[in-house]
């Protein structure tokens, strides 16, 4: 009962914030980037809420519970990617001043095919990221309310869509701030109470699960390396994260946003192994008795954290955890819906209907949000039962392969050409998609393809650009705009 009330409160707050923010979403700038008026700490909290999805909150702890040390790769990888983003892309991307990744590549290379490829890449990454969130939402509401999985996914998807349509980026930002605080706190409380079962000794906890502290329970050397490689580089190619940098007032603000984000998510990911290992020690084996059938059934890895919370803190704490997880899902999917909406309503629509009024663009954006919400619900129904962190890992692999090479080369190498970028983006996107599909079909054992597709995309961009030899005429102006401090050329709009 307490759990249900807490989730109800979260939902009420989210919708209330959206209604409050709806008065601002009259222009495209407000809808996509909140008028570029979000300060560094607000943005860091929102980014953390956006980033710490069901995969981070439920999936990592569940994987650590299931496979011990090998699950920790996800926590380390999800965190480490932020530094790459800070060092190479955060400031330049903000200084360019745009709404979407497609805007960025199209602005750099003045290319319609590249804009389309970036739009498709954004949709592909966002979809792979949305799927696990919807899976998590369905399982959580099933545990909490005993709802049928299908009903749970439909209601969660509808709710998220409503608040993006009403509030755009501003509502999404405020909600992500609230949700970040909630899920970080929930993780801290569960960790503290779980450690209490081991006399508040981390060492005692490790002593209770010696078999789970050794690498190799799930991933061999190649797959461990490929996984962390993909996670580290994938963060810097995630559309819903990159577009958030556009909401900063300046490049300097974008850097400080990343600093605060690294503090918030770093402390969060340091807690996840503790919680996962405590769950292994306290909850025990993988199978549980199904009261309805009397048979032993596999426990979903996605529900380990709420179960641990119930064990160490009762129904009330489980309610807090489920509310936190639901908040994580709401905030992440909202960010992804904004990114996908930008890809279709901004990148595609403005290309097909040049000169469309701002008001018309906002209407198209809101209609597109509804369409994306429907797709999120449908895909959530199809992928029932998959571990959410594993699925998010695949989204990272596609992002790392599709966007990271072209953004890096476009920002840092003046010799990059339109043809080189397009070829590299296609190699990364098609290659990662094909290797993921063939892995899921059991044709090979490489679960994260970025170790092959990221270098392939970089090499393709380099060699095709060299052969092409025709970088855009205004490359130097672009470099000046994205690299020189604001005081040299003034803030970007």
């Amino acid at each position, binding site marked *: 009962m307490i759990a249900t009330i807490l989730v109800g409160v979260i939902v009420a707050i989210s919708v209330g914030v959206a209604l409050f923010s709806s008065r601002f979403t009259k222009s495209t700038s407000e809808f996509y980037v909140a008028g570029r008026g979000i300060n560094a700490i607000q943005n860091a909290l929102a980014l953390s809420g956006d980033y710490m999805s069901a995969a981070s909150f439920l999936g990592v702890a569940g994987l650590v519970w299931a496979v011990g*040390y090998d699950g920790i790769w996800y*926590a*380390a990888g999800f965190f480490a990617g932020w530094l790459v983003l800070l060092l*190479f892309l955060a400031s330049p991307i903000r200084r360019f001043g745009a709404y979407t990744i497609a805007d960025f590549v199209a602005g750099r290379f003045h290319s319609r095919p590249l804009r389309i490829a970036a739009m498709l890449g954004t949709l592909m990454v966002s979809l792979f990221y949305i799927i696990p969130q919807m899976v998590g939402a369905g399982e959580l509401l099933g545990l909490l309310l005993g709802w049928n999985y299908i009903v749970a996914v439909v209601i969660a998807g509808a709710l998220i869509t409503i608040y993006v349509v009403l509030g755009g980026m501003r509502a999404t930002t405020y909600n992500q701030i609230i949700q970040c605080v909630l899920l970080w706190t929930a993780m801290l409380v569960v960790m503290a109470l779980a450690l209490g079962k081991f006399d508040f000794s981390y060492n005692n906890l490790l002593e209770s699960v010696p078999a789970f502290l050794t690498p190799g329970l799930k991933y061999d050397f190649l797959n461990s390396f490929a996984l962390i490689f993909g996670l580290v580089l994938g963060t810097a190619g995630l559309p819903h994260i990159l577009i958030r940098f556009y909401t900063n007032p300046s490049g300097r603000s974008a850097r400080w946003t990343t600093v605060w984000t690294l503090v918030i998510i770093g402390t969060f*990911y340091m807690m996840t192994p503790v919680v996962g290992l405590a769950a292994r020690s306290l909850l025990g084996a993988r199978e549980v008795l199904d009261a309805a059938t009397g048979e032993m059934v596999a426990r979903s890895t996605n529900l380990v954290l709420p179960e641990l919370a119930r064990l160490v803190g009762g129904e009330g704490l489980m309610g807090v955890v489920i509310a936190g997880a639901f908040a994580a899902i709401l905030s992440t999917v909202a960010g992804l819906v904004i990114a996908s909406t930008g890809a279709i309503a901004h990148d595609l629509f403005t290309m097909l209907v040049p000169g469309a009024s701002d008001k018309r663009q906002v209407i198209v954006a809101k209609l597109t949000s509804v369409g994306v919400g429907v797709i999120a619900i449908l895909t959530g129904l199809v992928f029932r039962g998959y571990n959410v962190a594993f699925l998010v890992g695949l989204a990272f692999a596609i992002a790392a392969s599709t966007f990271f090479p072209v953004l890096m080369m476009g920002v840092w190498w003046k010799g990059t050409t339109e043809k080189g970028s397009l070829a590299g983006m296609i190699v990364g996107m098609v290659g990662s998609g094909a290797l993921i599909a063939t892995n899921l079909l059991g044709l090979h054992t490489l679960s994260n393809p970025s170790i092959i597709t990221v270098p392939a995309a970089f090499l393709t961009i380099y060699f095709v650009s060299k052969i092409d030899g025709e970088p855009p005429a205004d490359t130097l102006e672009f*470099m000046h705009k994205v690299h020189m401090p604001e005081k040299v050329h003034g803030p970007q709009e």
Partner: protein
Amino acid sequence: MENNKDKAKETERYVAKEFRKSFSLGIFFLIVTLILPILNQVAKNFMLGNVFGNFSVTYLWAVLLIYIVAWVITIYYVVRTDREEEEH
């Protein structure tokens, strides 16, 4: 014309300097991160050896060292870049 050339040279110099800074810090951090699975493979006994209590080298590396290195690099990079932009 001359003005454009100067601007181009200044931009190229600045980009090269920024890249050297970001690249050296980035490569250092990637080594710290990506070498972990390699060491787990080639120096298994050392990595599984306990530093204190039940904390092994590989466990501390994965749950502590990566985070500390990232935070130190982050602060160093941001403070240095802010200062350089002020001085520019």
